[in-house]
């Protein structure tokens, strides 16, 4: 199947990921509706509401891009559509960052101007209770299922090598922090501490900014072809060295530079090779390329370019990054 790693359980995991995405969308609809009902005049609840509403984007992107990215390459898009996801993510990361900054400003101003949040009564079953008490179970509903949803997504993401799913999972798993901050804000207000609400709002907006910044770095990294990172974005992926190591072991290879790029869930590599002799067999080159492709299930294509000497531009791929 196109667009997923060649692993026996990959198709099953893809279907699991799609189910999780639909489940997330249904779940987010419920949290957003509940938060809206019990928001009152609380800035923390408003911030949490916006955060939850924005978390609608990653699963929606996943479902849409999953359809588009598996379209076959054609004359107009010779490399296929894998990059659609990365493009969508640059947009959503910028939105997340901008909204986070706006909410930080909003909450910060409320704190600075000593604005007291008005949280009144909520009629329920013929009785009026303080809206803040209802906000607490709603926030728990925002935090706890999200955590388990996030864990399930992370597992699937690591099998599919899907970074968008992985960052969505990380956001879900961290949602208990913002929901917890909002609960503390509400409890603070119940004890007459008006500033607890705006302070919680500021903390939640910082969390939004943090994830926006993280996603922007990832997304921009992807579209600028920086060397691959592991699926959790924490370490460099050793795939480049592994391909280089494999090629150097071939008897006909004297020197080699491998450049790997990430394209959505897939990897493609090009290898500039200086052969040991002037005459090489085409069959040998093709076979080496095919074998190199089997090093990692994510690799869809290894292009081999035999050259007399390594071009300067290509050689620079060995140089360390200049800050």
């Amino acid at each position, binding site marked *: 199947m196109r667009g997923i790693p060649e692993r026996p359980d990959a198709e099953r995991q893809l279907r699991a990921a799609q189910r999780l995405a639909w489940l997330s969308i249904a779940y987010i609809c419920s949290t957003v509706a509940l938060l809206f009902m019990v928001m009152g*005049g609380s800035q923390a609840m408003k911030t949490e509401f916006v955060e939850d509403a924005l978390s609608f984007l990653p699963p929606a992107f996943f479902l849409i891009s999953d359809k588009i990215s598996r379209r076959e390459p054609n004359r107009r898009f010779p490399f296929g559509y894998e990059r659609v996801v990365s493009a969508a993510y640059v947009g959503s990361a910028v939105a997340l960052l901008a909204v986070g900054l706006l909410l930080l400003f909003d909450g910060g101003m409320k704190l600075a101007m000593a*604005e*007291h*949040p*008005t*949280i*009144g*009564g909520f*009629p*329920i*079953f*013929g*009785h*009026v*209770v*303080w809206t*803040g*008490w209802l906000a607490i179970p709603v926030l728990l509903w925002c935090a706890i299922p999200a955590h388990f949803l996030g864990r399930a997504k992370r597992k699937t993401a690591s099998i599919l090598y899907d970074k968008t799913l992985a960052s969505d999972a990380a956001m879900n798993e961290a949602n208990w922090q913002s929901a917890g901050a909002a609960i503390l804000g509400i409890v603070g*207000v*119940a*004890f*007459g*501490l*008006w500033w607890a609400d705006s302070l919680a709002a500021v903390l939640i907006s910082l969390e939004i900014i943090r994830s926006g910044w993280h996603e922007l770095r990832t997304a921009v990294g992807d579209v600028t072809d920086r060397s691959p990172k592991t699926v959790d974005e924490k370490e460099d992926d050793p795939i480049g060295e592994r391909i280089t190591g494999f090629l150097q072991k071939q008897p006909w290879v004297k020197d080699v530079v491998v450049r790997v790029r990430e394209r959505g869930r897939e990897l493609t590599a090009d290898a500039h090779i200086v052969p040991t002799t002037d005459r090489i067999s085409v069959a040998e080159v093709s076979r080496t390329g095919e074998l190199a492709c089997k090093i990692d299930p994510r690799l869809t294509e290894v292009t081999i370019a035999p050259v007399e000497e390594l071009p300067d531009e290509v050689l620079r791929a060995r140089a360390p990054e200049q800050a």
Partner: protein
Amino acid sequence: MLRCWPVLLSLVTISCGLPRDPEGTSERIAATHELRVGVTDNGEWVDADSSEPNGIEPELVREFARRIGARVLWSRGSETSLAQALKHHELDLAIGGFDAKTPWKSIAGVSRPFVETADMKKHVFLTAPGESRFILTLDTFLTERMRASRGQG
């Protein structure tokens, strides 16, 4: 069983003194027995011209004041001056035919509606912002009114 938990929740939390008023409105009213209300003229809702304000909303305010054992201290002003006074906690309530979409809600607090008119406007009181306990007491009173008005209609 499902219907009794809001009552239980309210009883338990109110007896613990929660939620509290950051500026102590409820305590002040309990001590001085004075409810400070600002009025601004607005048709049948508030007639602020006579010596004692009349109309639908002043009547409601008097009933609420009786309920919490306070007498009403009236003061008159424009919407702007009333909203500012609420913000600085110089008033507890303001009335003047405000509805739930009032632009003053960015400055002052807004109560639950006590009536919905034929043109879908939900009429509310403005309150001093953030006085959770006091607003909860007011909201409880006004929600009863809302039910009564719906029962009639």
